C-alpha cells in the first residue's frame, strides 16, 4: 500500500517525522501486523484506530523499539531506526522517543519528582536544570503540589498526569501514546482528552496515538489510520474517515451507521448520484465520491 493518499495538510510541508514502510510483525507464525505504511508529519497528531487485536499497539511498540518487526522499515527524522533489509535495529533507549503507557507505569518506589526527573537524570542534566524542568512540567499538568508524594499515593488521573509530565519533560522529538486514557472513568477521560490535545498543541510535539475509542480519535487527531487484522483500512482526517468511509468495516466501526446492501442501477444514475436498488425494490440515491460503483454495493446512512 502506498503512503497516505490524502497527503499532509499545507502547514506541514516538511519531510515526515516518522515513516513506517511495509511493516510486518509475526509472533512465531502468527501475524500481528501484515504490512502497514504511514507517515507522521512534524507536529502532527496521528492516531492508529481499530478494534482490539488489529495490530495498532504492536505497530506503536515497533516504532518505540519495544517489539522487533519481521519485515519493513521505520525512519525517524529520516534516519532509519529499523530496517529488515539493512539489518538495522536501534534499541528503544537510543531512538530519542518517549511514550505514555496504558498502565501509566509510574514507578511505585519513587516520588512524583523522581519519576518525572528520571529521563533528565539519564541524560545527565544538572541538578538545577532538573529542578526547573520538572517544576515546569508538573506545572503544565497541574501536579505541582504533589511533587514529594509517593507515586503509590496518587489516584488514577493523577498518575496519568505524572506519566505525561515524565514523558515530555526531556523534550523528546516524538511522543507515543498507548491507549493512555482507557483506564480512566468516562468523565475524567473526556476532560483529559481536551487537556491532552491542548498540551500537544502547546508543545508542538509530533505524536503517534493508539486508541480503540472512536470519539477520542475523532476529537484529538489531525489524521487517523483505521486498522483491521494487521492491515490499514483507511487513512484520512477525522472528517474524511467519518463522512467518507471507504469500506463497510470503516463505516460500521466509525459510529453506528445503517448499512444498506443492494444492486447498482446505472440506468437510473442521476446527476452525480448513484442509484441502488434494494432486495425489496426500493431505490436509494447516494454519493460515490469518485469511487467506481460495482454491481453489488452498500450505502452507508448516518443520521447527524
Amino acid at each position, binding site marked *: 500500500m502506498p503512503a497516505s493518499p490524502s497527503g499532509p495538510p499545507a502547514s506541514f510541508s516538511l519531510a515526515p517525522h516518522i515513516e513506517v514502510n511495509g511493516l510486518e510483525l509475526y509472533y512465531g507464525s502468527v501475524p500481528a501486523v501484515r504490512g502497514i505504511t504511514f507517515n507522521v508529519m512534524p507536529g502532527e497528531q496521528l492516531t492508529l484506530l481499530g478494534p482490539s487485536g488489529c495490530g495498532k499497539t504492536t505497530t506503536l511498540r515497533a516504532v518505540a523499539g519495544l517489539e522487533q518487526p519481521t519485515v519493513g522499515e521505520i525512519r525517524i527524522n529520516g534516519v532509519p531506526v529499523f530496517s529488515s533489509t539493512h539489518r538495522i535495529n536501534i534499541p528503544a*533507549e537510543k531512538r530519542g522517543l518517549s511514550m505514555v503507557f496504558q498502565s501509566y507505569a509510574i514507578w511505585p518506589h519513587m516520588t512524583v519528582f523522581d519519576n518525572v526527573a528520571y529521563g533528565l537524570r539519564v541524560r545527565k542534566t544538572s541538578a538545577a536544570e532538573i529542578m526547573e524542568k520538572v517544576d515546569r512540567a508538573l506545572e503544565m499538568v497541574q501536579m505541582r503540589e504533589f511533587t514529594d508524594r509517593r507515586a503509590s499515593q496518587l489516584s488514577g488521573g493523577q498518575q496519568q498526569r505524572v506519566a505525561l509530565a515524565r514523558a515530555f519533560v526531556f523534550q523528546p522529538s516524538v511522543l507515543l501514546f498507548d491507549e493512555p486514557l482507557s483506564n480512566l472513568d468516562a468523565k475524567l477521560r473526556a476532560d483529559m482528552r481536551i487537556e491532552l490535545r491542548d498540551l500537544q498543541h502547546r508543545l508542538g510535539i509530533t505524536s503517534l496515538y493508539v486508541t480503540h475509542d472512536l470519539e477520542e480519535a475523532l476529537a484529538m487527531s489531525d489524521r487517523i489510520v483505521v486498522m483491521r487484522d494487521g492491515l490499514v483500512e483507511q487513512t484520512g482526517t477525522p472528517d474524511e474517515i467519518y463522512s467518507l468511509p471507504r469500506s463497510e468495516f470503516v463505516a460500521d466501526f466509525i459510529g453506528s451507521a445503517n448499512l444498506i446492501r443492494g444492486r447498482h442501477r446505472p440506468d437510473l444514475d442521476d446527476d452525480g448520484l448513484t442509484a441502488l436498488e434494494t432486495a425489496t425494490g426500493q431505490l436509494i440515491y447516494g454519493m460515490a465520491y469518485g469511487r467506481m460503483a460495482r454491481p453489488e454495493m452498500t450505502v452507508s446512512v448516518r443520521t447527524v
Partner: protein
Amino acid sequence: MGSMGSSFSIQKIAGYGVAAIAAVLVLYPVYFLLQAAFDVGDPQVRPPTAYGVDNFSGLLQYAQIMFNTLTVSLAATVMALVFGSVMAWILTRTNVPGRNVLEQLMVVPYYLTPLLGALAWSLLGQPESGFINGIWRALGGRGHLIDINTPYGIAWVMALFEGSVAFVMIAALMKSMDPSLEEASQVIGASRIRTIIRITLPLVIPGILGAAIFVFAEMLGSFAVALVLGLPSRYYVITTAIYQMIQQYPPKIQVAAAMGASLFAVMFVMLYVYRRVVISGSYVTITGKAFRPRQLDVGRLRYVLLGVCLLYLSAAALLPLATLLFASLQKIAVIFPTAENFTLDNFRTAMTMNAVRSAISNSLLLAFGTASIGVLLMGLLAWLIYRSRLPGSGLIEYIVMFPQAVPRLVFAFGLMWAWVIFPIPIYGTLWLLLIAYLTVFLPLGVRTIAGVMLQIDKSLEECAQMCGASWAYRVRTVIVPLLRPGLVAAWLLLFIASVRELGASILLMGPHSKVLTPSIVESWFGTSSELTATLALIQTLVVALAIIVLVAVTRRVTAQTLD
C-alpha cells in the same frame, strides 16, 4: 548506529553469560553421571575404556532394594496424602477453632527437616531404648510397642514431614475451588453427601492425583530418614544403597551411577507426568483466583477435629523437638532420668569441640556465600527466562529446573565424579560444596525470584527504556528496587536451604571442609545420640532465626506496599 548484532550487547553478554554458567553447573555433572553409568571398562581407568548397558542389566540383582524403595515410598505417599488432605480439609473447609494459627503452624514440620524427625523418632521408637517403648514397659507392657527401624517406621517419619508439603498443595487446591460450584448443586436440590460425591470429589481428584505423583517422586529421592532409620537394620533404599556403594571399599562407582541414572529417569518421568496432570487435569478449579471457601459448621465435632490437628502437629513438630531437647540435657538419654543424669555438658562440648565449631562456621560461611552469589545468579537467570526476549530462554528454563528431578545425592555423585578429575583442585574444599549448592538450589532460587518478577508490570521497565535508560541503568534504578522483596526472600530461603543441606554435602565434604548437617549424621553413627540431639537443636536454632528474619522482612515489605 547500531546493528542488530551489537545493539543489546551488555544485556546479551550478561544474559548468555549466566545462561552458560547455569548450563555448565547442571549439565557437567549429569554428563559425568551418565558416563560412569555406561562405563563397563576397568573402574580404575578414566576416561572409560568401554561403554555398554551391563551396569543397568546388573541392577536386577538389587531387586530387593528396588522393592524396599517402592514399599517405603508407596506407604509414605499414602500416609502423607492422608495427613495432607485431612489437615487441608479441616483447615480450609470447617469451622475448627484457631484455624489461622494452625494453618501457620503447618509449615513448621517442613522447616524442621526429615533428618531432625528421624533422629527424634529414633530416640522415641527404637525397640530397646526408645522412650515410647520405655513408657510401655513401665506401664506393664512386654517387649516393645513400636519399632521405628522398620520399613513402616521409615515411611511413617517420611510421611509426617512430607505431609506438610502435601497439605500446602491440597489446601491451595481447596482454596481455589469456586464455592458456587457446590452451591449450584445444592440449589438444584442435591443433598450434602450427593454434592460431595458428585461435585466436590471429581473437582479435587486431579489435583490430589498431581500431589500424589509429586510426593511419590520426592519420596523416591529422599535420603535422610532411610539413612538414619534403615542403616541400623541394614534396610536399604535406592538412595542409601548408592551412598553405601560409593562409601565402601572398593567403591562400586559404575553400579551406583547406573542406579542413580535410573532413579533420575524415573523421577524425571514422574515430574513430567505431574506437570501434565497439573496443566491438563485440573479443569475447573485452578483459575488463579482465590475464593473464600464455604465452611461447614461441624458443631461439637470441631473439638475432635482440633484434636486431630494437634495430634499431627505434635507428632511432626512438638514431640520431635521436645525429645531432642530432653535427650540433649542428659548424660545418657533415658526416659526416666535421675536428677544427676541432667547436664549441660553436651551444649558445652558442642560449642567447644573444634570439629563442631568449624562445621558450624563452615556451614554459616557457605550459606552466606550460596545465598549472596545465588541471588545474583538466579536473579539474572529469572530475568533472562521470564523477561528478556533473548532467543533460547525456554531452553534455559528447562535446564535450570532440571535439578528438581535429580535427587541431590545423585547430583552430588555426578559432581564428585566430574570434579575429581578437574585440573583445579577444588575437590574436598568448600568451593565444591558452593558449586553443588548453587546447582541444586537453582530451581528454588529462580522460582522464588520469578514469582515476584512476574508480578511487576512489564511496562515499568519499558518505560525506563523509553526514557532513554540503558539496560544497566534500568536494572539499577528500576528492576532491582522493585524486586527487592523477592531478592531478600530468595536470599533467606537459600541460606536456610544451605544450612539444612544433607544429600549433596554428605558426599562432597572433605575432611577439612566439614559442614553441619552431615556432621550431625556422622555424630549419630559415630559418637553419642545426646551430642547429636544437641547439634540438631543448634541447627534448628540457626534456621529458626533465619525464618524469623524472613517473616519480619516479608511483613515489613508487605506493610510498605500497602501504605
